[in-house]
């Protein structure tokens, strides 16, 4: 058993790399919350612009935030935006994708039309218009909802394509002939086969949502008094930390964002391998 597991791990290295990267991040946040006082992530709680030292291992920024505390407090907030938006997006998107592909006809044309048009429009700009219209001190959760408003497009398209190919398979035909209703077939026959795809789609959606939220935040449309990773980059840009040589200010958020994106990316590749075993031959 252990031997078989080891062999699978060796074949699906991406999955392991993804899980390890995200696990390290979880460890950092978990231990950080126990050891570090996250209250130090508020402005004026530390001396301004100090390079890393024993007191402030990641240094401090210009408004007097301790950057280690900011990272410990901000990383889960950024992930929270990603997960809320990702789950909502995949939930709504896969329902639409199922309905669209299973019932075909007019419903399908409408949903497909909306998705096709929605995907060609630059998402960030639409989100900007939404955020600008609603802006009155956004919270992290409102931010997640804004990002979710476009996060369902991609899942809907992926799920629709998968269901379209599945509904022609033999076992669906058998279920239909044996008198199962449409929703029953969707839940009992299609859903279990789709789960690995949905998992990969979910990870993708979370990653896209985090990217979109960081984009909005860098532009100054984020939750202005939350210490999320994107807001930290906004302050980096706002204070021209790069030109002033305050390297520690942007190093920490960049490294963490890199770990987040790389971890999620390798996780998708690994899940794809589970979802689509035909890839095994290729790689």
């Amino acid at each position, binding site marked *: 058993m252990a031997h078989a597991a080891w062999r699978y791990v060796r074949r699906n290295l991406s999955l392991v790399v993804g899980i390890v990267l995200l696990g390290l991040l979880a460890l950092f946040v978990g231990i950080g919350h126990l050891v570090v006082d996250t209250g130090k992530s508020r402005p004026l709680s530390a001396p301004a612009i100090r390079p890393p030292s024993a007191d402030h291992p990641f240094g401090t920024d210009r408004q007097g935030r301790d950057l280690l505390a900011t990272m410990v407090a901000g990383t889960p907030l950024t992930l929270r935006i990603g997960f809320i938006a990702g789950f909502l997006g995949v939930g709504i998107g896969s329902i639409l994708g199922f309905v669209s592909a299973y019932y075909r006809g007019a419903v399908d044309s409408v949903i497909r039309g909306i998705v*096709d*048009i929605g*995907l*060609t*429009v*630059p*998402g*960030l*700009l*639409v989100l*900007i*218009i*939404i955020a*600008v*219209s*609603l*802006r009155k001190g956004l919270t992290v959760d409102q931010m997640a909802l804004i990002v979710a408003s476009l996060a369902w497009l991609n899942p809907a398209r992926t799920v629709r394509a998968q269901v379209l190919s599945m509904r022609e398979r033999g076992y669906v035909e058998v279920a239909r002939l044996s008198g199962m209703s449409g929703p029953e077939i969707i839940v009992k026959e299609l859903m279990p086969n789709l789960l690995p795809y949905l998992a990969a789609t979910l990870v993708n959606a979370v990653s896209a949502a985090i*990217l*979109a939220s*960081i*984009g909005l935040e*860098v*532009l*100054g*449309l984020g939750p202005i008094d939350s210490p999320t990773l994107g807001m930290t*980059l906004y302050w*980096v*840009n706002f204070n021209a930390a*790069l*030109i002033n*040589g305050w*390297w520690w200010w*942007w190093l920490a958020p*960049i490294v963490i*964002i*890199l770990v987040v*994106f*790389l971890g*999620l*990316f390798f996780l998708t*590749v690994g899940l794809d391998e589970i979802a689509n075993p035909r890839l095994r031959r*290729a790689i």
Partner: protein
Amino acid sequence: MRVDYLARRCGVFVLIVWIAATLNFFLPRLSGQDPVRTKLLQQAQLGGYVHSGIDAMVKDYDRRFGLDRPLWQQYLSYLRDAARLDFNYSIANYPRKVNELIAEAVPWTIGLLGTTTLLSFGLGTFLGALLAWPGAPRWMRYLMPPLWALHAIPFFLLGLVLIYLLAFQIQLLPMFGGYSAGAFPGLNVTFVWDVIRHAILPAMSIVLVATGGWALAMRGMMVTTQGEDYVTFAEAKGLRSLTIFVRYCLRNAILPQTTALALALGNILSGAVLVEVIFGYPGIGTVLFHAIRENDHFLIQGIVFTVIVALGLATLILDAIYPLLDPRINYRRT
């Protein structure tokens, strides 16, 4: 048929333009308050030298979108303005019109984005095809991990790192702007060279990331086509392996790659906006960034609308070219 196909695509384009204008009109009104009016009133209360301009703007805004007119009339007059790309004055830069500001920034964005997209798409497709070629040199396999890793990074993040390494530490290239502060714009060698030097870093941060994505997608498609029956048949016929590779595998793998390009333009643009902000590059992204800072609603709406329309147009052109690449499309009737 070809004409059907084009007509349908043009219809979709008009639909996109209409939806963009409608979103622009209704979204700010959904929140209950009128952010434009609030901003204008704020500005008017601040007074000062811009006061007369604000008065004129409020009057103009009232004439078009006055509360005394029913919503549908306001909506129609907004649609008419949008169709003529007339977005009123910029609140922060009165007396300059929004479309003037956009027209100034657009060439920079098109230059940066066009070059980098073509470059990364071409390079990535070529690399991806090579990666799937059995005869490719061995060292090419070591290219895969860095391509994968780069591809997962947002453009602007790489941009930050590049600025620090190549502009701040070793001062090889300028770190900020589209041309040097003292340079006099004109068509001469010094200025053009200056512009190119400023464009290298932003372009690099887009190309390095995007190439990996295209290479991965192309390699995946190549692997799929190489497993097709017609390739086995071609091998059985005894065709040269180069012929099989180019005419049978590559030719077919290019098609989904082109479709993906049309779909990816939106994402590339969203990423490039942030790259411009990081580099202070004088394109649409930077103008948008300042507009957001100043709460300049007319300018924000104008930019979003213009970009969506421009992108719709680019997708339309790509889709119009597509039948030339894929002869099957001519016969499809739907």
